[in-house]
């Protein structure tokens, strides 16, 4: 039996060896198909994990309160708010009532504005965020130089700011030299007291954070907030906290005038969209696999015709119809699998090279799919040619030229 399997594989390879170019071209079709499917899988998986990481960085016990209902489009955290024209604006009264929440550890008001910043002759369009001293806690921000402003800075409307890593590099060249420098934001001048690490959100990473009271002076004379960031005491209390927040705000606003958002919910939504898009892309990529399969079928028909006499000889010396069927199925499957292996290897190389710049990932599912699907294709598209071979009458086969 084992001998028979070895013989089958040997038979297949001896035919491939005789038709090297044909074998290469035939498996090339499957190779391209597997390559594209694996790359798309890797892209989908990479993006999903990247997104997941982003949301996990935000913390799982974060809630956001924003005016209006539903996100106003835009992928990053800030853009959603700035596009909300014509809806309500929160104010200090809301802040005071939310601060009394029993389920919240931190309540941070947020005022966001995009403008041109200037520092030491360099200008850059960036966001200015008026927030409270707990902002870094709520978003798990890591202070990499200096420190975050504190409650006394907020109380005194201190003209200080904390700058994000990326922006500090853009304005000052590096993180270290930012501390103590002055940033001009319209008529406001603030001194850099700390630098926070990038969070992965392009808007956050291109922003300065100032005490919200400081924005009252020039940027935010109406003393409005675009959002509240609420750090819930623990994850289990999220639901309870949402209810509490709604109860507080409903005293003043209508139900559709504000919304409490659980960012981790977005992850699910994004994942779903991503999965759908990925599935469509993979379906398109799979077309090349089918085309590759047709190529295999085509070549297998040619092989059967070419080897009709061999089939006759084998039948004469005792091969059953089933033996012949299996022989050609093994051949088409190996042919397809060779393409699959080549495609997977190339995809693996590309992922290793590209993953340094772009989120790509290969998992065990991608590997098993890229080997399993070619097997399936080899069998599916090989079965008709193989049946043709098995059904040859031994005598006619043996007499064929």
């Amino acid at each position, binding site marked *: 039996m084992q001998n028979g399997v070895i013989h089958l594989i040997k038979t297949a390879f*001896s035919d491939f060896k*005789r038709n090297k170019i044909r074998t290469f071209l035939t498996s090339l079709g499957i190779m391209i198909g597997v390559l594209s499917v694996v790359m798309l899988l890797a892209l989908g998986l990479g993006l999903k994990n990247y997104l997941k990481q982003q949301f996990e960085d935000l913390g799982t016990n974060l809630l956001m309160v924003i005016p209006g209902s539903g996100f106003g489009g835009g992928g990053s955290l800030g853009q959603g708010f700035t596009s909300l024209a014509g809806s309500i604006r929160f104010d200090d009264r809301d802040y005071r009532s939310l601060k009394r929440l029993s389920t919240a550890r931190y309540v941070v008001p947020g005022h966001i504005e995009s403008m041109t910043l200037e520092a030491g002759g360099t200008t850059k369009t960036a966001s200015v965020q008026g927030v409270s001293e707990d902002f870094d806690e709520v978003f798990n921000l890591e202070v990499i130089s200096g420190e975050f402003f504190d409650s006394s800075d907020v109380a005194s409307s201190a003209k200080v700011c904390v700058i994000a890593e990326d922006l500090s590099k853009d304005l000052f060249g590096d993180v270290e030299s930012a501390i103590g420098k002055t940033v001009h934001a319209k008529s406001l001048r603030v001194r850099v007291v700390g630098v926070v690490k990038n969070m992965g959100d392009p808007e956050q990473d291109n922003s300065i954070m100032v005490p919200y009271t400081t924005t009252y002076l020039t940027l935010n004379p109406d003393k409005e907030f675009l959002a509240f960031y609420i750090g819930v005491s623990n994850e289990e209390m999220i639901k309870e906290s949402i209810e509490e927040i709604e109860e507080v705000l409903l005293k003043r606003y209508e139900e559709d005038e504000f919304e409490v958002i659980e960012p981790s919910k977005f992850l699910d939504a994004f994942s779903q969209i991503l999965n759908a898009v990925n599935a469509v892309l993979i379906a398109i990529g799979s077309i090349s696999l089918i085309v590759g399969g047709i190529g295999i079928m085509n070549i297998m028909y040619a092989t059967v015709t070419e080897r009709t006499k061999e089939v*006759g*000889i084998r039948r004469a010396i*005792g091969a059953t119809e089933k033996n012949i069927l299996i022989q050609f199925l093994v051949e088409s499957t190996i042919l397809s699998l060779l393409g699959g292996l080549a495609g997977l290897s190339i995809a693996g190389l590309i992922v290793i090279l590209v993953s340094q710049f772009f989120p790509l990932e290969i998992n065990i599912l991608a590997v098993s799919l890229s080997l399993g699907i070619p097997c399936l294709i080899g069998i599916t598209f090989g079965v008709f040619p193989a049946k043709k071979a098995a059904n040859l009458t031994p005598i006619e086969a*043996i007499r064929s030229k």
Partner: protein
Amino acid sequence: MIKLQNVCKSYYLGEEEVKAVCNATLEIKAKEYVSILGTSGSGKSTLMYLIGLLEQPTSGKIFLDDQDVSKLSDEELSHIRNRTVGFVFQSFNLINRFTVLENVLLPTHYLKGQLDFDPRKRAEDLLEKFGILERKHFFPNKISGGQQQRVAMVRALIMNPKIILADEPTGNLDSKTGSEILDLMEGLNKDFGVTVVLVTHEKAVARRTRRQIYIKDGLIVDKY
């Protein structure tokens, strides 16, 4: 050993029915050395393939060791062919992308169950007996016709069959080589005790066997 009872075999060439073998009744006993003699198109090859169970009769019965084999499944017939019958063809019918040794071992891959001999050793012994052991790693198209036919004979013998069926084994060979092959055939019958059925259109070849069966237009006849 093999009995044919009123065996007919017909083909359809389009609409037209062609009776290749008609009402053939014959018996070949164990260890016989027989020839089937007939002109081209007489049905002699079809008769041989019927005896070798490579063809199913349209009507009539075939008995192998008193077992009716005319209604067996493909699987069962293949198994009998594998174990009991060895074929030798006019055009050798070796597989050119396999070496001599691999060709000889081919039947051993199709045995259902365990071999009762070491296939490689048996192959090499037989190749040596036939004087072609040193060619075992050659590909068939790199050796002479006489050598190829010897390889084919070793392949037919590898499973230790009871009967060897040879279809014009000398047809593609010059008379000297052909004669050597016929000597070997005779040796198979004498030394190995194998039943040998030789299909030929040459009376001179047929005369070398102990009994001749004449076939003409699909019918077995007494005289040729």
